[in-house]
């Protein structure tokens, strides 16, 4: 059982880390909650299904994955330009609009594909047996893919000029602007990176889960808990928080009766406790104007 818990935690944690990282990047730079984030995860997963499934286009899964990620990123950028950019200063409006956007995507997918459960073709079949637990190749792919992407993002943020600009904007938008950084371009880029991350998470996960248009809500709740636990806007915190919340979720599911219903409740309980006793999270910074 312990082996099962470890494997599940690593798998869930790496997907959550990809999702939470994008969310934290947007929050860090623009200080808005972009609630349609997990909708792009759903779009990415469906994209793989559309392009790779034999009944639709039937392309090679790798090619389908790349097309799906690029398309989803494009949709994310369009949403940013059309809906978020012009109301960026009004935080509550952004939350409402992005939530409505998430509902729009969910409904559009529901109309096109109906509520049927579907599954995407996998990249690799077969499994390895480690410590007595059968782990499918696809699950290794999730873990390895997430690890590589996280490394790339880490290098991007800490080693490049763009990364410096992103960090400067996150620290103080106005000063960054005065230093000659084009803030709106940075926001646009970050939105693209974040949508791509969500799409990658969706593409990686798609073969291992059932696809339905409502699949964006369970990770939505978890990502909320993760970014608060890690500290809103903290990149390191979101990755560490992802694995902690994944561990909590797996423990609840494995150890409690009716745990599948309570996993969200426990994750949110963690979030509330963190907000009450340590509102800056594990790695966050205190923002004076956001607390009283």
């Amino acid at each position, binding site marked *: 059982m312990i082996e099962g818990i470890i494997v599940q935690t690593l798998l869930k944690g790496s997907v959550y880390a990809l999702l939470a990282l994008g969310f934290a990047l947007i929050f860090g730079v623009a200080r808005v909650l972009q609630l349609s984030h997990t909708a792009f995860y759903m779009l990415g997963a469906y994209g793989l299904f559309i392009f790779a499934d034999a009944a639709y286009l039937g392309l090679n899964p790798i090619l389908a994955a790349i097309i799906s990620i690029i398309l989803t990123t494009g949709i994310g950028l369009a949403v940013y330009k059309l809906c978020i950019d012009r109301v960026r200063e009004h*935080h509550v409006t952004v939350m409402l609009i992005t939530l409505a956007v998430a509902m729009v995507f969910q409904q559009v997918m529901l109309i096109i594909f109906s509520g049927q459960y579907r599954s995407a073709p996998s990249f690799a079949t077969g499994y390895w047996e480690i410590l007595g637990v059968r782990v499918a190749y696809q699950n290794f792919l999730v873990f390895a893919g997430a690890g590589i992407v996280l490394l790339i993002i880490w290098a991007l943020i800490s080693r490049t000029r763009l990364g410096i600009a992103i960090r400067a904007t996150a620290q103080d938008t106005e000063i960054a602007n005065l230093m000659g950084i084009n803030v709106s371009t940075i926001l646009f880029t970050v939105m693209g990176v974040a949508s791509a991350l969500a799409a990658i998470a969706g593409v990686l996960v798609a073969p291992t889960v059932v696809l339905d248009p409502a699949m964006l809500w369970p990770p939505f709740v978890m990502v909320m808990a993760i970014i608060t636990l890690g500290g809103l806007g903290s990149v390191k915190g979101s990755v560490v928080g992802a694995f902690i919340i994944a561990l909590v979720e797996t423990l609840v599911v494995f150890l409690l009766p009716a745990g599948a219903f309570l996993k969200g409740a426990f994750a949110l309980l963690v979030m*509330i406790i963190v907000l009450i006793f340590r509102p800056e999270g594990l790695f966050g910074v205190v923002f004076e104007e956001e607390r009283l």
Partner: protein
Amino acid sequence: MLSRLFRDFQGDVVAIPGRLIALIFFVLLFLVPAFIQQPYILRMLIFTNMFVIFAVSWDFISGYTGQMNFGHALFFGVAAYATAFLNRGDGLGPGWPIWVTIPIGALVAVVAGVIMCLPALRLRGTYLALVTLAFPLILMGVIFANTEFTGGELGISGIDRIADSRTAEYYVSLVVMLVSVLIMWKLTDSKSSFIRTGIIMHAIREDEIAARASGINTIRYKLFAFAVGGFFAGIAGGMYAHFLRIASPSTLDITLSFQAIIWTVFGGITSIYGPVVGTYILYPLTESLRFISEYRLLIFAVLIILILLFMPEGIAVWIRDKIERECPRCKLTNVSWRHTCRACSADLY
């Protein structure tokens, strides 16, 4: 005495087009059952009345004090379950009559509101929105996990009706709605000379630190807002449960919280009459779109995006600004097609 009342009526209601329209609208609502007997339309209007209370109470909490409450369904759902539990007579609950269960259910919702307010005392903006979003979801998980007590997905069913006939139910919901909205409107009236809460809540929204510096105990007033708003949302939730004769997990649903926000934002936030207008337009509209039900939520969501982008002050406020104009000298409200003020004859342009 009577002539003075008539003069006040002429000056404060008839002369202000917004209030005149509201008066005519409510009189028409009282006459509806005399002309329309279809149970379907009455049922729709009863739901609208309940949701008006729900949306106005959200406006009371979040619009006026600026504390963004994204889990307003918590009050609705807690009250629905509490009334259903107190009313059920199958041995698990005490089986009290409906006139006791709805107020007590609403008081239970107030307790829930005060518990929810404890983090709200420390958090603001985005953080508060996250915490309030979490509470109904946690409760929903608890309900699904304890199926033998809460009924799980099926809920608690078989509770009493509000009244014996559809028409009586309509009048009960209408009167309760009118009284609730009137109380909340008076409590938020910032021009009132004897109720201070309105102006204080405005002050908290505009600048909480400044309000504190002026000697206002802002924590007390935020608690007050959550308690009053939670009470009225609880009344709506209890009536909803008794009308449907079932308390189901859908009363805690995240979409219900957002519908309250959507109705309010559509009508006009921070205005009390905004959510009334918004609910009376949007709820019957979306109900009558049932025949294309898969497009209903899509249309709804697109409408919200458009409203937020292009008419952020809301439709009721937009119309009011078209038909009313405030006198620059004496601050009296005038019909917008007058050229001079009706009291001090100052130029209105």
